[in-house]
């Protein structure tokens, strides 16, 4: 197990390193002169040079790269060119919206998908089982932002039960903040739940066709008992993989849903900075998101090793 953990950790670090180089090159390479991008088309050469000098953008790329990555690991994400605010401060206050939104969305998705997927796998010949299959197929085709718009039309505009957007701080009005997050979380959870249901269903179906389940059934267990006692751990493996892969999707969904409900979360900040061409802010926050996704994948991989001895023993 130790060897397995070390290998996975090494790959995690390698992946973060590779991704940081990719992001750095993409921004510096594809974008060209960063100072020119920031100042816009009308900037004079002198102004561009002055800005480049002030922020050290005229130094060799390698130096700039190690400076940037070193600072990230020290918790310093750089400063905004326009407002001179520290990016770290901007990010931390916004995570208090994005993280609860993202995590609750995932939990709601699992809460929908695990029972619905299991039921439809065990009862594919019954009307409700078929209905779940159809609903999840349709749900996969629904863009998360449209779900958000429809929910806010219904519960916000028509019924007036919940806010259609906006945000009050956790400390100022706790329940107000919760109310602001309800519709975004439901939108995220429903759409994520629809695609997860499919995976849960096929994972359970696979397990139910295994010999060990047949053996368990032969001892007199019902299908449900067999699933819970011998099937669950096996079905958990592919589901864990899919959840890991869905994290990238979930982040994308969170970005969009924050826009639908005008929540001032992390992604709204990135979007505003994309529009303002604050290249350094975008570069650092994007890197932060990637590290987060990779970290979740690392945890999924480690869980995999715990759940399945074949994985950690494989060379």
């Amino acid at each position, binding site marked *: 197990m130790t060897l397995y953990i070390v290998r996975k950790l090494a790959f995690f670090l390698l992946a973060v390193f590779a991704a940081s180089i990719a992001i750095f090159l993409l921004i510096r390479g594809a974008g060209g002169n960063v100072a020119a991008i920031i100042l816009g088309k009308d900037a004079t050469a002198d102004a561009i040079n002055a800005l480049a000098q002030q922020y050290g953008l005229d130094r060799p790329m390698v130096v700039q790269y190690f400076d940037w990555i070193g600072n990230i690991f020290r918790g310093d994400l750089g400063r905004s060119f326009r407002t001179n605010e520290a990016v770290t401060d901007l990010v931390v206050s916004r995570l208090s919206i994005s993280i609860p939104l993202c995590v609750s969305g995932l939990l709601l998705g699992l809460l929908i998908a695990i029972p619905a997927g299991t039921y439809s796998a065990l009862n594919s010949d019954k009307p409700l089982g078929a209905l779940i299959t159809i609903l999840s197929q349709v749900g996969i085709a629904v863009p998360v932002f449209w779900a958000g*718009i429809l929910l806010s039309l219904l519960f916000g*505009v028509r019924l007036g039960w919940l806010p259609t957007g906006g945000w009050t701080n956790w400390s100022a009005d706790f329940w107000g903040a919760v109310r602001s997050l309800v519709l975004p979380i439901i939108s995220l959870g429903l759409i994520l739940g629809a695609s997860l249901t499919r995976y849960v269903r096929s994972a359970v179906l696979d397990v139910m066709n295994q010999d060990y389940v047949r053996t368990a059934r032969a001892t007199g267990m019902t299908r449900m008992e067999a699933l819970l006692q011998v099937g669950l751990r096996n079905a958990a493996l592919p589901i864990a993989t899919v959840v890991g892969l869905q994290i990238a999707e979930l982040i994308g969904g969170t970005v969009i849903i924050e826009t639908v409900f005008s929540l001032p979360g992390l992604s709204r900040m990135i*979007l505003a900075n994309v529009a303002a061409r604050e*290249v350094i802010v975008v570069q650092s926050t994007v890197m932060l998101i990637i590290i987060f996704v990779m970290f979740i994948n690392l945890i999924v991989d480690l869980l995999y090793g715990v759940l399945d001895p074949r994985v950690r023993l494989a060379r």
Partner: protein
Amino acid sequence: MSAIATNKPAKSRRRPRWLSNTALLLGIVISVAFLAIALLSAFYLPHNPNVPRIPDRLLPAGSPGYVLGTDVLGRDILSQLMVGARTSLLVGAGGALISLIIGTVAGLSAAAFGRIADETISRGADILLSIPGIVTALVLAATIGSGALTTVLALSAFFTPSFTRVIRSAAMSVLQEDFITAARLYGRPTWFILLRHILPNVAGVIIVQFTLFFAAGILTEAGLSYLGVGVTRPSISWGMMLNEAQQQVGISSPLAMWPGLAIVTVVLGLNLLGDGLRDVLDPRLSRRGA
């Protein structure tokens, strides 16, 4: 993950046959209609979708001359939807096509050119997979500016690693077959075996994946254009229409219905087509989708 032994094919049928057949039929009908409308929009539009006609603003569906009504600037909704179909087709299919080409080359290489090639390509794909597509799109929008081409690039970057993995695993299983060993013994070079024997055998997988990524591309494009970092006017995207509609949603909710319905219908149709084709072309994979 590939260390897990794959299970033998299921004996029981996964879903009722009537459901599978209806689904495939529906998928074909929707996909063909979508293609037809997208093509038609290049030759015929009821109105110019970008020209505002303020006196005709916010007409309801069924108004004379405007089948689906007009938006807040008096622009014809139907014409916008038709151009939106063309955008979805070009961007979605473009992104899927580029990732198909790169993914097939990379996947086949990983499968056939030894352990080092395989490790490099597979680990590279793993790394790329953990970068959310939307993040790539944002980075590209911040550096080279947003637009249809940027969106296609972002989609390609996002889909290529998944495509590579699927093609790799399909090619791996074909490589186990006896006729490959026979071809090797016969002295055929690896590239010949790849083109002559592997490629035709993974063609089904490629077609199925293309259809599914096409659908995913349309969804992603809509999302990016909704955020304002995808397609911009004078091009029109369904996601962009939804963004514009949302700002007026208090006034006229039908505006938020049409583009959404268009996205759901087309994505559903392509997904059904992809799943149906998988049942037909690639029975080995059909277990997974269910």
